């Protein structure tokens, strides 16, 4: 069944049963978020870090989850390495950033031997709950890759399609965004978009319609697209927006969050286990949605997006 809201995601994740989540060097607010997620049956947390202070927090917090484990590690890097080891062994399912520096985290993930790297591109998807209708929108890549070339964009799109299908979108509609809807050799983003769109025409993305290049007016408004003579089932009903590069991706995601007042969540994809990282424009409430999202991705076992 298709999930159309953050509540649908939470419900579906709860229904699928609790997952084990590991978090290195957690901050106080991480523990609060995970305590609530554990209480609602989403996850069983495993905290790795300085045992003494973690136990002190556990002792004081009435919410501290009963089944949670506390494992000792000397410093954040050790905690992270231990967490990744456990994920690789299959002892836990999901990784949360915790107190790890985000660049250190990404660098560690990317490492083929010690990280969670697979043959897929590692990317980040932002998920938005539409402000006026029952609909979820995916925007990617909004965090991990600065200036992906077309092969990486293919990977970024495949990751997003995986997530979209997990959310029940059977034939996702994709807009590959650029400044204009015409292919213009002077604007590199329009070339990449045209290539992805052609790959989709050839069935290389499975059941999906990838339209590009699309400018934002054509993407969000069927009427605007028709005025420009562009006819496509994607216009006015986009499930996945693929952005040209990070300047656009990050600022576009923030625009939806602040000018659009839309709730936002996200997850790292392309790793062998789902990874939740801290983005500054995601509220603590929606952190629970990210955990739920990661739980749903686990359902797909080793083949998660």
């Amino acid at each position, binding site marked *: 069944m298709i999930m159309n809201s953050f509540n649908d995601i939470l419900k579906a994740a709860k229904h699928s049963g609790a997952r084990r989540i590991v978090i290195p060097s957690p901050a106080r607010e991480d523990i609060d978020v995970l305590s609530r997620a554990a209480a609602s049956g989403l996850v069983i947390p495993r905290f790795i870090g300085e045992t003494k202070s973690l136990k002190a927090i556990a002792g004081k917090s009435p919410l501290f989850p009963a089944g949670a484990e506390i494992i000792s590690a000397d410093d954040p890097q050790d905690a992270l390495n231990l967490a990744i080891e456990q994920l690789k062994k299959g002892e836990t399912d999901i990784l949360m950033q915790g107190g790890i*520096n*985000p*660049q250190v985290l*990404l660098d560690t993930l990317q490492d083929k031997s010690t990280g969670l790297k697979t043959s897929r591109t590692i990317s980040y998807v932002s998920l938005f709950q539409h*402000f006026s209708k029952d609909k979820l929108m995916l925007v990617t890549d909004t*965090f*991990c*890759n*600065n200036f992906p070339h077309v092969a990486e964009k293919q990977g970024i799109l495949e990751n997003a399609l995986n997530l979209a299908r997990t959310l029940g979108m059977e034939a996702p509609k994709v807009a590959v*965004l*650029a*400044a*204009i809807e015409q292919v213009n050799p*002077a*604007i590199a*983003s329009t070339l990449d978009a045209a290539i992805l769109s052609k790959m989709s025409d050839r069935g290389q993305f499975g059941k999906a319609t990838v339209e590009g290049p699309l*400018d*934002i*007016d*054509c993407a*969000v*408004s069927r009427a*605007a*697209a028709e*005025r*420009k003579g562009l006819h496509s089932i994607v216009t006015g009903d986009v499930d996945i927006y693929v*952005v*040209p*590069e*990070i*300047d*656009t*991706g*990050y*600022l*576009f995601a*923030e*625009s*939806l*969050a*602040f*000018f*659009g*007042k839309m*709730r936002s969540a996200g997850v790292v994809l392309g790793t062998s286990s789902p990874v939740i990282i801290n983005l*500054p*424009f*995601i*509220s*603590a*409430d*929606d952190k629970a949605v990210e955990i739920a999202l990661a739980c749903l991705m686990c359902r797909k076992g080793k083949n998660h997006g």
Partner: protein
Amino acid sequence: MTMIRKLGDFAKLAREKGPKKMVVLAPEDNDFMMAIKKSHELGYIEPILAGDKKRIAEAAQKVDFNIGSFRKISEEDKQSISDLGIRMLFSGETPIAGKGQIPTSYIYRSIIREEAKANSGMTVSVVSLWEVPGIDHLIAFTDTGVSIKPNMKAKKEIIQNAVFVFHLLGYTRPKIAVLSGQREVGGTMASYRDYEALKIEADEGKFGDCEIVPATSFTEIFLAGKKRTGDEKNVRKDCVPHILIVPCLDTGNIICKLDFFLNVKRSSLVATSRGPVCIPSRSDKSHNLVEQISMGVVLADHMERKKKVQK
């Protein structure tokens, strides 16, 4: 001069300041001709219609617009229409020009030539103004139309053009954010280095009366170090800068046209050294076009007054 805080303010002012002569370049589409008709009826403009005579007459007839009394200039080649219209603006014959069914790049080409001839030092950039509920002033994204990947030199000129527009709108010391996708990962972005360099120059007063704020993302602008909460109580709208310099064309164009989706209103124009040029997008509807024309009329009026004061 009072500060113009809403796009709707332009309509009222345009009625007071109009009608102004506006050379209209290739008005061959119904929506666009309808906008010219309404703008004329509202007393904003007295159009001079330049382009293919037959097509102009057809479009006028379709929207029931009697163009008998207006001056017409017959020309079929699109670049020539653009050239002659922009020349009229620069020679002072008309205070405003408006683009119809001509590729925008032709207009930019004409403007660049005329600016070079006039030795004005101004380049071409597009300023897209937004009116956002809860923000008590206009905000502008720029450059949203010309430079694909502006370098430092281009960004300086983009800032100067936008500051020029905001001074005309009555903002004595506009605040500017140089936007970037800079975040905690991915090293230092080129767009962020541009911010750092431009901030130093702005602090030295190189861009005149304006200020570059120490924020490059909307998170910094709206949350100022606080955390986002479910009830949005930490989102502050009282410190939003007036001018937002976008890193590149893709970013600017994609974000500024979010008015097709979000609850914001947009109006775009090119400010040349001699007067505004309205450059509606091919997907804009006629009511939006009328608003853009009213903005052109008001800016033209403010430019004329400024010139008189300087004399």
